[in-house]
């Protein structure tokens, strides 16, 4: 399949899927929020603009959108937009903390082929979860999942960001998922948004990362991972269902105000390709933006090219490098060969770029943050291993 994945890295006619953050508003204030959400942005796309964007997705045959936020269900037109998308052959998978998943809503969701639901939970126990996601969030998520299970919604996703404190609970997460008829989805903690503030304390240690890798090899067929952990392929064997950075090539992010970024973890001007409100709309951004054209050119591995693991890990995650102050053609901060730790030691404190929009509760807009711009360089090209595994997971 190598020739096919070569085609992917040069970009597709349209994204296979894209992440669409509908709002920066959120009832929670998770310490690791990758979009620094909290307050609604007054420039948010309105209902009519959202529907026009869905029309465009339909014309381009974007197969489905991953709707997130913020907490997307707090938008008063959320269900209207979900219905509009599915009526226009754009599938919807949305991420929620569960706050609006009542028994009635759950019953409605259970009836659609075109809607999938992902409930976020970052601890298998209340104390571990609530320390990160806030008091009461564990109970809210569990109640939402119980409502979905009771409504007969099989196979919804239990979505976990793997941290230093919950990496030992993977079996317990799997038990919760099994009990409720859900599928476990694990993703990587990124130093994006507020995640940058807590990354040092929350990202798994090297030993934990190794254990995570072993666990994924053992359980990977049952567990979804997005493209989260392809840097772990450097250990030797590619974990199932991983191994592709599709930023700007097969995926992208549309934020609540219509800005288009290369990926959901890269909300920063250096990765902003345009805005859907501009002439030519989303299609023009996808097809003509200079940034995306750069990303679709063959990439070089820089300092990593000499490493024997490079063919597997492809230098890791662009966003993880960027927001820890590492060069994009250098090692991932969690490089399994330890090159990331060495590189991080050379980054002067406070110099790493910050995600730019900050809508956190209790923070004045634009306060305190002085983003440091480093040269924009294209990331490593996409991994070539197991493209089908990576993509069939990417569409779950």
């Amino acid at each position: 399949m190598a020739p096919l994945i070569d085609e992917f890295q040069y970009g597709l006619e349209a994204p296979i899927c894209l992440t669409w953050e509908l709002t920066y508003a959120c009832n929670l204030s998770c310490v690791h929020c990758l979009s620094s959400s909290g307050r609604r942005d007054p420039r948010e796309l309105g209902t009519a603009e959202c529907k026009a964007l869905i029309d465009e997705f339909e014309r381009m045959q974007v197969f489905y959108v991953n709707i997130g936020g913020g907490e997307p269900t707090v938008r008063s037109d959320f269900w209207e937009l979900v219905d509009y998308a599915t009526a226009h052959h754009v599938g919807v998978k949305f991420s929620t903390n569960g706050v609006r998943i009542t028994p009635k809503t759950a019953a409605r969701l259970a009836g659609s082929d075109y809607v999938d639901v992902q409930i976020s939970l970052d601890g298998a126990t209340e104390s571990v979860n609530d320390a990160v996601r806030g008091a009461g969030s564990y109970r809210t998520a569990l109640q939402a999942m119980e409502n979905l299970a009771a409504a007969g919604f099989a196979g919804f996703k239990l979505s976990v960001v793997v941290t230093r404190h919950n990496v030992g609970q993977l079996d317990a997460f799997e038990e919760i998922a099994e009990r409720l008829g859900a599928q476990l989805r694990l993703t990587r903690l990124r130093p994006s948004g507020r995640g940058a503030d807590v990354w040092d304390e929350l990202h798994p240690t090297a030993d934990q990362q190794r254990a995570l890798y072993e666990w994924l090899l053992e359980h990977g067929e049952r567990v979804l991972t997005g493209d989260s952990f392809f840097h772990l392929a450097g250990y030797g064997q590619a974990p199932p269902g991983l191994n592709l950075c599709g930023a700007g090539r097969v995926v992208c992010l549309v934020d609540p105000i219509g800005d288009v970024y290369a990926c959901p973890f890269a909300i920063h001007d250096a990765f902003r390709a345009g805005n859907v409100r501009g002439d030519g709309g989303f299609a023009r951004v996808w097809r003509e933006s200079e940034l995306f054209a750069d990303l679709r050119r063959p990439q070089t591995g820089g300092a990593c090219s000499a490493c024997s693991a490079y063919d597997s890990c492809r230098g890791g995650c662009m966003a993880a490098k960027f927001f820890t102050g590492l060069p994009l053609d250098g090692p991932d901060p969690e490089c399994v060969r330890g090159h990331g730790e060495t590189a991080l030691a050379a980054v002067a404190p406070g110099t790493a770029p910050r995600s730019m929009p900050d809508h956190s509760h209790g923070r004045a807009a634009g306060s305190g943050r002085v983003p440091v711009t480093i040269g924009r360089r294209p990331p490593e090209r996409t991994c070539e291993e197991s493209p089908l595994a990576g993509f069939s997971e990417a569409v779950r």
Partner: protein
Amino acid sequence: MSTDAAPDVRPAREFGLDEAWRLDERVSLRPERFGALLYHFGTRKLSFLTDPRLSAAVLALAEQPSARAACAAAGISAAELPRYRRALAALAASGTIRPEERADGTAD
């Protein structure tokens, strides 16, 4: 990969070239340089066609009275037909394409 859907059609060897076939209504096909991407909304699986002419043939099923005619419309020669028949049979086995319901024998 993409073929986990329970097959509910005849085995590959009996694939009816002279029958009318249609893309399953839950499947979206998007042509790409290398062929096409297929997404099945029911199974949420993505799959690929790595041959632009196969993609054209599958798209032509909608307006052709038979799979054979769709292949011809896509520029597939008689000599090449066995290979494409096998590919279509695999798509039928995965539920990507389905036999057309023919109430009155006319193609729409």
